[in-house]
């Protein structure tokens, strides 16, 4: 049994399991206490310059955009972002100068809609560094190892590739099979933000539909900000405890903001705002354009409600709700 390869990616967000336990002991309370606060307060309290941050959901789905915009508004700096199918979130966080490093599974693109002009420009000009490569499964399992309080989780991906070589993983010989096996280091992001369908004031949260990575991510994050479409009574949670995806004791802040995933999709509630995403993709082709977007939608609005107003208000939201429930057809949109 020997180490066959050591990835040269920066090992970000890893802690010795005993240090991780110590953090839990000293910083995560088992007390049911009211954690309701504003996005402004949550971000100012729990997001610090230099933090390793991670966003829940997937791509443009169920992303806690209210927190993302608030991070930009508060001009946080030197953040490292988990690029775990990160799209609009990482794009504007890099463009705004908040994030200058990333560990990347998928970043700098908007899936079908094309590559991200803004964050690509920052990476290609050296203003944002990719400090490690990884894959979606490997990221997911970094959270799993963290949630389990382990130093690593083995896996059979990344092997043989540059993705592995530029990752923070190690390859060893498996003492059971004698074959090479990849070891994915645990990750404990300094802060994660996850948007949910409903949640009580203590942080017990329900997510409708598929969970993506949020079961694991919520449990490994050192600090966790939950934004929720709706705050519900604790009794609602206790009535059907099998629906709880995230238990209160891993949660640090509960922020009630309806439509907080906008312009991303909230499964079952509202669709992507493709017009908004297209506007960003068009504007962000130049630095000036990116700044114009940030000015219009972040710096010059006081809060998420004003932002939604700037995006089209009630009429737009009504359309997105109808679109989500197939009551409006797909529209042809140009992103270029």
């Amino acid at each position: 049994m020997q180490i066959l390869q050591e990835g040269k990616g920066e090992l970000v967000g890893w802690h010795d399991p005993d240090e991780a336990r110590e953090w839990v002991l000293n910083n995560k309370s088992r007390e049911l206490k009211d954690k309701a606060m504003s996005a402004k307060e949550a971000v100012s309290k729990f997001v610090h310059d230099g933090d390793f941050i991670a966003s829940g959901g997937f791509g443009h789905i169920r992303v806690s955009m209210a927190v993302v915009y608030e991070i930009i508004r508060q001009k946080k700096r030197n953040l490292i972002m988990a690029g775990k199918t990160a799209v609009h979130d990482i794009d504007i966080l890099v463009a705004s100068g908040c994030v200058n490093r990333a560990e990347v599974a998928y970043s700098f693109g908007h899936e079908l809609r094309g590559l991200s002009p803004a964050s690509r420009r920052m990476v290609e000009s050296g203003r944002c560094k990719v400090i490690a490569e990884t894959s979606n499964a490997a990221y997911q399992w970094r959270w799993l190892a963290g949630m389990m309080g382990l130093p690593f989780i083995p896996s059979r991906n990344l092997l043989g590739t540059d993705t592995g070589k530029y990752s923070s993983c190690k390859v060893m010989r498996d003492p059971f099979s004698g074959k090479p096996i990849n070891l994915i280091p645990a990750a404990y992001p300094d802060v994660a933000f996850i948007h949910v369908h409903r949640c009580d004031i203590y942080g017990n949260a329900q997510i409708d539909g598929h969970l993506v990575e949020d079961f694991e991510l919520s449990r490994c994050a050192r600090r966790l900000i939950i934004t929720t479409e709706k705050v519900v009574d604790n009794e609602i949670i206790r009535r059907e405890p099998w629906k709880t995806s995230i238990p209160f004791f891993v949660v640090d802040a509960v922020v009630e903001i309806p439509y907080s995933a906008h312009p991303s999709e909230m499964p079952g509630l509202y669709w992507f705002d493709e017009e908004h995403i297209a506007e960003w993709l068009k504007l962000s082709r130049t630095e000036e354009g990116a700044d114009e977007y940030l000015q219009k939608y972040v710096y010059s609005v006081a809060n998420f409600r004003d932002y939604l107003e700037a995006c089209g208000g009630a009429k737009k939201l009504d359309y997105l709700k109808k679109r989500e429930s197939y009551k409006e057809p797909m529209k042809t949109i140009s992103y270029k």
Partner: protein
Amino acid sequence: MAAKTRYNLRELLACNGSKVLENKKSVFVGTGLPMIASMLAQKTHAPDLFIIFEAGGLGPLMKELPISVGDSRTICRAISASSMHDVMSLSQAGYADYGFLGGAQMDMYGNLNTTVIGDHDKPKVRLPGSGGANDVGSFSNKTIYIIANQCKRSFVNKVDFLTTAGYLDGPGGRERAGLARESGPYRVITQLAVYGFDDKTKRLKLISLHPGVSVDEVKQNSDFEILIPDEVETSYVPSENDLRILRQEIDPTGIVLGK
């Protein structure tokens, strides 16, 4: 493919991708053409094709094309709406018969680059990275690639960055690296042709030419030598029914296939 056709390039790619898929098997699909091809297969020869999405959607019966492999369309009438941990674990354990990926750059062993053009730390073009590609390419029994733009800069001797494992350095390469036995790239579909991999050498080998494409054209659009068998078939040509389904049922706005 200079001649004017009833179908456009992306429709041709989707139809040929679809044809590779078998009924009653599973396919782990990425966004875009792989999704379109899988939906087409379900609506034609493979009604019981089992579609897997990395964000947690298992076996959906979609009534509308998803925009992302994670949106609510991917769990529409699914048999399970689960998590990435579940999907990736099942795939690592062998439940993904086919994987279906797109790529920017590939070498003769089917090693794929979707990370960077140029040097990693001083990139000429930064691409999105692996996403789930490395996982799909590591875990699936048979992986299919669609590379829409075959040319000397995409079919290269050495990929700028090896994002996703093909056969690595050739026969036995995957096993030596610790990857799953009997897994690896299976088909490559480009704007010119459909390729497979030679059993012995694990090198890219022509299977069929798209209508109007010559062997020379295929060779000229590759930096590495493509194996050419004695018998070369003609690729599948989209039927009227395929095109009707693609245009009317699957992608009416042309977000993937264009108008």
